[in-house]
């Protein structure tokens, strides 16, 4: 960036700015405004469509939680100055590994999951290693891995099982302790009590008659919340968080100041891979199987959520809370358009327009913060 200079306090050449306005102006502001707008909009247009009953809330809640899980990884990585186009392929690949290990090879599910995490983290580290060693843009390196991982996600089941979907993980996962961490539900008691008291809908027939339709908080949502909190704390409250900002703001300057930039970047690539694998594991456990096409285009969705949340594509600036709000907006819009009865092929058009609108808003906010012009 070009040299930007502003005179300091007490300078007659700068207009006064109120404390209130100062407090308002933060990276998440765009996300907060967007969230309010989006909810207001759907409350008006889809308020009585079931979007805000327990089932509806769980529905967009889960979609948003999905986006959040990958957005947290993408956000920290983007703030560290890189990004990862292989997230979607990693989701497909990791899910496929879990299924192959547990079903085809018959390993216990906990072992399948752990080994998959190890492999995914290794691939994340490899991504990062190539980027920091060669100095290539991460766009290209991770684009290569987008193809490589997707290729394997198709090739492996294709050669091993002659199909592109491997099912039966549910049976294998029965009673597995680690599977429950990804596929289970918590607070079931609370939801049953809510259902018994008629505050949330219950099943009207079938084997589960009388049970609440929403019978617990899926672990997917728990993971999303935990990752957002952990990500936020790491980024804003720790030494390592400062290093992430520094690595993305100006790698050379950070390196000269004693920040281990390479380590930070590689760790962030690994964290992104970790998030993608959490996503994959939750998906495999919930649906009991893996498919070659899982996670298609998820890398873009993650990047979009992060950017809507106010992060800078070029690194050094952003917020995990913002990214989480971006994911929430994205999830609510995606599902809300349906509840509002909008023609589904127009969804993409809306998505594009919202993205454009969000980045322009965020740019404006950021310029106020940094004084950049």
């Amino acid at each position: 960036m070009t040299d930007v200079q502003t005179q300091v306090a007490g300078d007659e050449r700068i207009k006064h700015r109120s404390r209130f306005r100062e407090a308002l102006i933060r990276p998440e502001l765009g996300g907060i405004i967007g969230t309010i707008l989006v909810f207001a909009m759907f409350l008006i247009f889809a308020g009585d469509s079931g979007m805000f009953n327990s089932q509806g809330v769980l529905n967009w809640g889960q979609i948003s939680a999905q986006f959040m899980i990958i957005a947290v990884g993408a956000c920290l990585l983007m703030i560290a100055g890189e990004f990862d186009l292989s997230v979607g392929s990693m989701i497909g690949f990791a899910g496929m590994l879990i299924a192959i290990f547990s079903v085809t090879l018959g390993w216990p599910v906990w072992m399948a999951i752990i080994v998959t995490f190890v492999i995914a983290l290794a691939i994340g580290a490899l991504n990062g290693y190539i980027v920091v060693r060669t100095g290539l843009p991460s766009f290209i390196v991770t684009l290569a891995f987008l193809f490589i991982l997707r290729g394997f996600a198709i090739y492996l089941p294709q050669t091993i099982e002659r199909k592109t979907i491997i099912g039966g993980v549910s049976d294998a996962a029965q009673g597995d302790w680690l599977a429950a961490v990804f596929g289970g539900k918590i607070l079931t008691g609370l939801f049953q009590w809510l259902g018994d008291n008629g505050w949330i809908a219950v099943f009207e027939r079938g084997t589960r008659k009388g049970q609440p339709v929403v019978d617990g908080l899926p672990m997917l949502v728990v993971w999303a919340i935990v990752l957002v909190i952990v990500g936020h704390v790491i980024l804003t409250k720790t030494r390592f968080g400062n290093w992430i900002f520094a690595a993305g703001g100006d790698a050379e300057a950070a390196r000269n100041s004693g920040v281990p930039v390479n380590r930070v970047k590689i760790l962030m690539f690994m964290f992104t891979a970790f998030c993608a694998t959490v996503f994959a594991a939750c998906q495999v456990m919930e649906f009991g199987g893996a498919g070659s096409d899982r996670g298609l285009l998820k890398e873009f969705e993650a990047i979009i959520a992060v950017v809507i949340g106010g992060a800078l594509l070029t690194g050094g600036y952003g917020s995990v809370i913002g990214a989480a709000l971006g994911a929430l907006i994205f999830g609510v819009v995606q599902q809300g358009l349906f509840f509002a009865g909008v023609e589904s092929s127009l969804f993409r058009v809306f998505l594009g327009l919202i993205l454009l609108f969000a980045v322009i808003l965020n740019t404006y906010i950021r310029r106020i913060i940094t004084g950049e012009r």
Partner: protein
Amino acid sequence: ATAASAEGEKYILVSHAPDSDSWWNTIKNGIALAGEQMKVEVEYRNPPTGDLADMARIIEQAAASGPNGIITTLSDYDVLSGPIKAAVDSGVDVIIMNSGTPDQAREVGALMYVGQPEYDAGYAAGVRAKGDGVGSFLCVNHYISSPSSTERCQGFADGLGIELGDQMIDSGQDPAEIKNRVLAYLNTNPETDAILTLGPTSADPTMLALEENGMAGDIYFGTFDLGEEIVKGLKSGVINWGIDQQPFLQAYLPVVVLTNYHRYGVLPGNNINSGPGFVTKDGLEKVEQFAGEYR
């Protein structure tokens, strides 16, 4: 919601197809027409990228919006059975269409199944081809990551009684690439007896490929599903047969069945197999007129 005989019921059809898959038009047109005729509200929903996990969420969402019925495909039992069961249990009536099997439909608690079991259709086609003296083939799979596509090729191979092996190629969806990959394959394997394509996306460029290398009309050519160009191909004899699963029926009938069920409590006692029907050169007139729209 069974006994209400008022108009304006709401039905949602959820498919597994990505936005761009042209074959699903007929389905959209089918429900739209049924909706008009029965005076009910219908809606079509699909995962934009064809990701089945996204589709599961859409079924959940559809259930949350409180429709009278959901019509959905069952292209992966593992992924979709949970949400479908939950929908059934929460009081939404479900009909399975297009993919899946009658048994699976029963298991998830659906009212009935309307469609063409993919593996069986492939198998039937294989048996027919075997009768016509086919010994080797090329299956052009333009949608490799979808399990039902692979099942079609697998069924065909099994019907012929030969190993599938490398005879299925991942052609991608770009017409030029499909065309040239088919050419490349036939170039290296000139002794190939037959070609099987899985829908208009792969059939149209494949026809051009055959025209270009002079095998048009010479090589045994069968395809799944119909489309404008396929009909032309049938007419000109380039394509020997098309397996018509009559998607129109798969969309139209469930709406009609559900509406009547909800209004008058009547329900057919059996599943409906909309296909496989073999369409050949004979009797193409109606097909020609409505190909891509209702056929």
